[in-house]
């Protein structure tokens, strides 16, 4: 009596098999998407925390620019033309130095990549042709906005607010694309008093 499967039996078997396999494939795809999302988010976090802490420290320790050659106006701590400009102490410069080891530094956004640039002097006129990347091509920085408040010498202490809109630039496009808006403020460490 072992004649094989009937058509009905075969159809039912194929249907059950199909449903099971579809379910498993969907589960597998969902798990892969989740994995990709986690990795992309981790990448954002890693690079964001690095670049924000790095900028935070440099901005906090800015020197008052008495000439205004770097910031664009005399006796200010920060300039905001096309990014943020300030005098930053460069530990690689041997002392004594014509500018006491301070160099004009700029953090800015170019082609959705966060960059820094260091002048060879205390002036924004001596910036190199191109800067150094602080974030990789794995990220797309949609915006970097900086506000400086209270940068008036002998009047108030400067407060720099920095906000970045960061999204993943991975070729594996997820919906929604992992992104973050991060903000922090930095109060200048040294008192804003003329010497």
């Amino acid at each position, binding site marked *: 009596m072992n004649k094989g499967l009937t058509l009905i039996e075969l159809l039912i078997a194929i249907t059950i098999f199909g449903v099971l396999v579809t379910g498993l494939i969907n589960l597998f795809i969902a798990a892969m998407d989740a994995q990709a999302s986690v990795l992309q988010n981790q990448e954002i976090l890693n690079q964001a925390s690095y670049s924000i802490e790095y900028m935070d420290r440099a901005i906090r320790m800015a020197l008052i620019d008495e000439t205004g050659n770097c910031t664009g106006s005399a006796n200010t701590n920060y300039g905001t033309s096309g990014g943020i400009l300030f005098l930053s102490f460069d530990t690689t410069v041997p002392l004594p130095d014509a500018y006491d080891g301070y160099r004009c530094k700029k953090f800015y956004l170019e082609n959705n990549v966060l960059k820094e640039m260091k002048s060879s002097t205390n002036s924004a006129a001596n910036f190199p042709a191109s800067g150094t990347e602080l974030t990789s091509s794995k990220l797309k920085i949609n915006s970097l906005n900086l506000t400086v408040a209270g940068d008036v010498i*002998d009047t108030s202490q400067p*407060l720099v607010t920095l*906000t970045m809109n960061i999204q993943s630039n991975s070729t594996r496009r997820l919906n929604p694309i992992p992104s973050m808006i991060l903000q922090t403020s*930095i109060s200048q460490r040294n008192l804003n*008093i003329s010497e």
Partner: protein
Amino acid sequence: MIMNKKGFTLIEMVVSVFMITIAVVGIVQLTTKYIQTTKFEKESYTAALLGQEGIEIIKNIRDTNWVEGAATWNDGLSTDGDYEADYNDSSLSSYDSTHYLYVDGSGYYNYSSGTKTIYRRKITLANSSDKVSITVTMYWRTNELSVKQDIYNWKP
């Protein structure tokens, strides 16, 4: 030969389905947990930076007092209590637990314009002689995170 080799018994089916279910449920739960943890990590970092901003706003008020030569070093900070302030405020307002931070089109977290976020920020001040203890507490969903710092009247 016994004629008992015709397929699975019901027991075998139930046991195998049970085992597969456990495996699949395990994977799904692990993935879900993974996603939740990453989300929490992102929110915590955002909150930590906003908390740090709260501390900086208070420090900025103290330093401005010195720079402008205010009568007291803790002018504007001398009353203990719960306060709120955003990045473009130079003085504090009373804390209102219904006030959420908003994020505007440029990406600034503030109290007045833009899209409502999940974050709330409470700045608590406690004075003792020559010291103000700052505690910034960030609230979001059911989570909270505190940042603490003491600032001193160090300037002679």
